[in-house]
């Protein structure tokens, strides 16, 4: 599998570390709502289809990137720096 790092270009998957579901929103730090924290840490949409996820180019520029990858075909349709913010408008996984 090749992942196109927005900085380095297409690189082998072995250079990347999977950092999991990119749909999760960390609650505001002072939030006391344990339900929100639990959902953030433990609960996953886990779709069969397009999935928003985060990878780190750990054996490259070390940037974290948002990736949209189809979990049925492994086809990647979008990558962008995670620093660009949460791609909420491209929410994937609710329907699959």
């Amino acid at each position: 599998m090749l992942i196109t790092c927005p900085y380095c270009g297409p690189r082998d998957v072995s250079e990347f570390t999977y950092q999991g579901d990119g749909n999760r929103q960390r609650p505001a730090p002072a939030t006391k709502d344990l339900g929100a924290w639990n959902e953030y840490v433990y609960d996953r949409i886990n779709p069969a289809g397009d999935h928003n996820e985060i990878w780190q180019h750990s054996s490259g520029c070390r940037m974290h990137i948002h990736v949209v990858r189809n979990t049925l075909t492994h086809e990647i349709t979008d990558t962008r720096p995670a620093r660009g913010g949460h791609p909420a408008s491209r929410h994937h996984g609710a329907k699959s």
Partner: protein
Amino acid sequence: MASTRKAGQSAGVSAVARLSALAPVYRPGSHGNFEHGIGVALSEVVPTSIVQLAAWSGKEKKLIGIIGSVMGLALPDATGGGAVEGARAAFGVAPGKFLVSDDRDDLASIFAEAMEPDTGTVTDLSHGRTVIRIEGPEVEWIMAKFFALDFSLPAFPVGAGRSTAHHDIFAQIQRTAAEQFDIYVFRSFARSFWTALCRSCEEVGYEVQ
């Protein structure tokens, strides 16, 4: 402010000779299948200073400018963009991050002076990286054994840099001539990497300079 950073993030300057990580395994001479010629030559480059420069978002161009004035190198504003001139080298390794190396032993301090904190940070890595140079007609072939990168000249032009890894060994690579690459590896891994490199070069015949 700059002075504290200089004190904190630099190993400093000394007349005491520095010990190469490769010392016991560095064996000058011709090795491997060299009867029909030398495919590549290996050497350790010992730049006195290796410094990482990182710009805050939006300050990348400013940093490139500072590198230009301190190093006398004009960096193209592109992925891995870099330039090399004798012992002076600079190349991009990550968004807004550059590795610069030079014979000047106080390069980290020079950059710390030249760079405002709101531009970015300066981190001295002079002792933390070992630089291995590989050159010769078979250089792309040997590099391809180690790294999953396209080493052809159009894909990896002279001066440009790339960050990658050979299994567990992180490496930053700059093409310093058409048939020459400088590989920056972590000092602690340098000996393992060198040994593996030598072994892979046996096939084409190699010389340690």
